[in-house]
């Protein structure tokens, strides 16, 4: 137990002042966001994207629907599949709704062909929920330029 007393109490108040005084000469913790970008972890689980492929029918994605089935929040509303000449499935329509997505990464984990991956966008922001519904089959590489973020451009070129 702490001994209580007038002088101890008075001393503790001065000690407190001392601590804050010392801190006045400490290093700043501020990151000047958005002037300075905040570093994002290399394994950051950002918005999911489909690895792009030139020919749709040769796509890495084999349309097994495992991602759609495992998604806890039903954030993959549309995933239609067609068959190519070799009788192999490929996606023709693939939509992810980032407004529903909880970024758990279960879809990326479950994908047998590693066709899905996370982007490193850590500052998603959009003016409307519909902007977050993305057709991810044809979008190519997402950067903060074509994706709604708080620092990048606001308009979205997707669905």
């Amino acid at each position, binding site marked *: *137990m*702490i001994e*209580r007393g007038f002088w*101890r*109490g*008075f001393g*503790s*108040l001065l*000690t*407190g002042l*001392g*601590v*804050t005084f010392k*801190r006045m000469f400490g290093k700043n*913790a501020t990151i000047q966001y958005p002037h300075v970008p905040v570093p*994002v*972890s*290399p*394994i*950051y*689980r950002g918005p999911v994207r489909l690895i792009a492929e030139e020919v749709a029918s040769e796509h890495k994605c084999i349309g097994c629907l495992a991602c759609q089935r*495992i*998604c*806890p*929040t039903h954030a993959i509303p549309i995933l239609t599949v067609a068959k190519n000449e070799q009788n192999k499935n490929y996606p023709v329509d693939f939509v992810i709704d980032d407004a529903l997505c*909880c*970024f*758990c*990464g*279960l879809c990326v*984990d479950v994908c047998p062909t590693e066709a899905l991956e*996370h982007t490193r966008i850590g500052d998603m922001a959009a003016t409307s929920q519909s902007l977050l519904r993305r057709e991810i089959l044809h979008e190519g590489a997402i950067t903060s330029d074509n994706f709604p973020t708080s620092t990048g451009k606001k308009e979205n070129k997707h669905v």
Partner: protein
Amino acid sequence: MPLEPEAVEPVAEQKAVYPELIERLRKAGATEVSSLDYSKSGMDVDAQVTPQSLCAVASILKHGHFSLETLVGVDRQPEFEVLYLFKADNEGPRVKLRAKTDRETATLPTLTNVYGGADWYEREVFDMFGVNFIDHPHLRPLLLPHFTKFHPLRKDFHGAPIVIPEDTVEIPELDVQAATKLGQSTGLRSDFFLNMGPQHPSTHGVLRILLHVEGETILGGRCHLGYSHRGTEKLAEKKQYVQFLPYTDRMDYLSPLNYNWGFARLLETATGIESTPRAEVLRVIMCELSRIASHLVWLGTYLLDLGAITPFLYCFEDRERILTIFERATGQRMTTSYIVAGGVRNDVYSTFSLEISELMRDMRKRLVEYDKLVIGNEIFLMRTDKVGIISPELAIEYGVSGPCLRGSGVDYDARRDEPYCELYKELEWKVPFETGGDCLSRSRVRMAELEQSVNLVEQALLKLEDGPVRSKVPKIFKVPAGEYYSVTEGPRGIIGWYLIADGSQIPYRLKVRVPSFANLQTVEQLMPGTRVADVVSILGSLDVIIPEIDR
């Protein structure tokens, strides 16, 4: 696996069957008393009670200093069953009482006369299943709005709109009565009611307390919950075990990793999957870091409640470093979804140990500084010393756990007393506890825990050896039919998961026992006679997380 029988058998031998206790329960009127295998189900004794014998059996447990851990309502279709879980101190057994009632009458006697802590639990069961508890002093919905007519956790409930009736009053008469009743012990009278919350700076989330005050003195108060009720337990009945992982993150926004671990341990208990040695070490490191981060937020916000703003910023600066490590190791800062059945989801990055040991070195210096700035401060002492005293008896009766329990002089920590991670036994640390039971004791316990966690992390880092981080887990994850309970120690206390599995990929019933629920419940007992400023002080020292309570 050749090692398995050897590993299991000594545990089975060591685990005592409790013949004396079983005999006494039988005498008090319990039927079908049997002992369970702790290593498989997480419980020791199982007893069926009739509504008539419930209180008598519970009294036996009360005399044995059992604490009421939780109530689990189950819709067994057609009848309802309410499970009462009791835990004796440290090494003692965990007892499950089962009381059945049929669907039409749906009534059971209340346990509040024996265990005061049954109050909110019974209200929750009343909410969710519509089971009436006869003679309950204040049987109103706890988490749902007071005008709802449906019971969501019944299996035949598939959703209903919430219609707010026109004649809804701001403060229902019943609440006023209840708050007034609590204040009778102070001997004062007043007509002044103060609504603290749901939007209030220091209720730590959306909690509303209806305070009955005379000037600045509090006569009584009643908590209102459910503003962030998300129905996680109902959701769990619709999700596969694997899919439920992200929901465990969202129970408690300050220590998602501890909840990840709790759920992983539940699945491991139920299926017998074992995690790898490296994963175990990583779990300890991450969870202790999470505990440090959580306690730092507590320290900061508590001081904010008491009026000092600066420590908050200091604590968040330190926490930020921990969150950065989380982000790099797990991929997310707060919704980590990292610890899963069989290990952890991915291995950590190369400079992980280096960064953490550096952080821990700084942390030690910072802790000394916090001690000087905060805990030693005379004004802090004035605000916390002898304020909001939870006696050990009250703590046990209400099932208080974590630092709040240890601040009341009960030396129980699931990390040490529940065999859920061998590593905690190998590392050198001690469970801090204080005997005061007041806000100051709880604060000092947390400060000491911060130091112990730093100790644990530093030692665990040395044990980190190469190896796989996840053992083989079947592709289609099923849990064999049965009932399982598992307990882990979170930053706020015991996180318990009760699972009723039917052998499929989806839980039949999943109940989460959250520490803040029991801890907050004591507040109604602590408030009468204190001042408005003390309520803030008491609430802060309990370190409650409202979304965790509401689930």
